[in-house]
């Protein structure tokens, strides 16, 4: 075990963290909406000094042949090199890809958007919704910030108009919001030694054993799970982490407008 980790465990055994928080405390959370007026919907989430922006773009496209009556949903994430000295420019890394797919899972599996609602004319025209999440400053816990920003941006989004060629008219936006059915909020719980924490800073992220991202809907049902890290978890561990995630998810969801 590294010296760093031993030192951190000393704190955790006393219920303390490097910044004085308790293991289940979040840093200050703030959400701003409509931060990019070229996006159909956008949001900026700050958790402590971590900052993430999500933007929603929509377009009218031909549906895929095997889903002729459903629209398309895509979640993309970029760990821009501006956000941390550890991020490099170039194609997405494993870290960036995992982030995108975990947020995607939460959004898609919750069916917060019923993709049938995105159908304009079966077989010919459907709405495609693209959510792009961009890390601006990484001070730990990008997973939760990204998940929250994605759902906040979706709630902010307004449908573009349609022009006479059947394509989206971005100059004439409507006041119609995206038909959202659920509000999934992912929470990542970390296990370090025998302590479970939420909202890790970078030091804590560099010294954990295992983590579990749990996406919860507003009825407390789970809609996505992802275990990360090289350590192992018992079933009791997982049950405990899920309970903690549900509690925090409810708390975080209240911060959405």
């Amino acid at each position, binding site marked *: 075990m590294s010296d760093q980790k031993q030192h951190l465990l000393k704190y955790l055994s006393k219920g303390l963290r490097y910044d004085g928080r308790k293991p289940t405390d979040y840093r200050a959370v703030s959400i701003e909406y409509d931060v990019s*007026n*070229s*996006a159909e919907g956008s949001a900026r989430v700050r958790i402590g000094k971590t900052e993430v922006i999500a933007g929603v773009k929509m*377009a009218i496209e031909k549906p895929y042949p095997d889903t002729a009556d459903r629209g398309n949903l895509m979640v993309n994430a970029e760990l821009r090199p*501006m*956000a941390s000295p550890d991020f490099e420019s170039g194609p997405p890394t494993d870290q960036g890809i995992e982030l995108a797919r975990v947020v995607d899972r939460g959004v898609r599996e919750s069916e917060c958007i019923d993709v049938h609602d995105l159908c304009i004319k079966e077989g010919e025209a459907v709405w495609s919704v693209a959510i792009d999440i961009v890390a*601006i400053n990484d001070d730990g816990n990008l997973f939760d910030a990204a998940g929250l920003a994605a759902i906040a941006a979706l709630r902010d989004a307004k449908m573009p108009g349609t022009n006479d060629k059947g394509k989206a008219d971005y100059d004439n936006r409507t006041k119609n919001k995206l038909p959202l059915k659920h509000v999934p909020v992912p929470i990542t719980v970390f296990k370090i030694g025998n302590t479970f924490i939420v909202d890790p800073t970078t030091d804590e992220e560099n010294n954990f054993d295992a983590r579990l991202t749990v996406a919860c809907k507003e009825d407390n049902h789970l809609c996505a799970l992802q275990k990360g890290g090289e350590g192992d978890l018992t079933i009791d561990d997982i049950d405990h982490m899920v309970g903690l995630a549900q509690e925090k998810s409810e708390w975080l969801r209240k911060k959405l407008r």
Partner: protein
Amino acid sequence: MPYLKRFDGRKFDETRPITAKVGIIPRADGSAIFQIGNTTAIAAVYGPRELHPKWMQNPNTGILRCEYNMLPFSGHGERVRPGGGRRAREIGMVTENALRPVLDLKEYPNCVVDVYIDLPQTDAGTRCAGITAAAMALADAGIEMKDMVAAVAVGNVQGSIVADLNYDEEQNKTETEGVADIPVAFMPNSGKLTLLQMDGEITRPHLKQALEMGKEVCKRIVAIQKAALRAKYGGSQ
């Protein structure tokens, strides 16, 4: 038809409303955000730091490396596919050339100063907003700079020389009259130019007029950059 009144009512040498703030990305060595009208550029500076790959290192001096990136939701219409492309690479290069003249990197052999410019929303004048934000971020990072650098797009719209063209003005070509879109960057103390490009058509005397207007407008933008740098430390003069 001569362009006598601007679409948004501005004076010919008036820029759109500007906000500037420094130190917005704590993990970076320096950072700034510059918004002009609906174009917003965020710049982050990391460096001097070790340059990888090693074969790019220069034992005589540090190098400046600039990257320009439009965020996927920042385009005027459809989503912009991530990955940069040739336009972004060229803008990165002219940004490097626009900032290089004020920097002396001989003190940092084998190192790199990385500048990352990302735009969350765009409405013309993007490369100029990027250069202006980058200059503030470099100063914030404590890099030695002979002078500040500010940039703005000047141009000729239906016979009138204007500063800070917005999207509608850029697109306002007719069959008889063209539009010249001229991004420029100036160092205020010497009045010398570090960026000059042009799309469109212009006469020689009009070009000179446009450049003179660009110089004056850039001087005003530098005052805003300096105020933003001072504001971070609570200074007011």
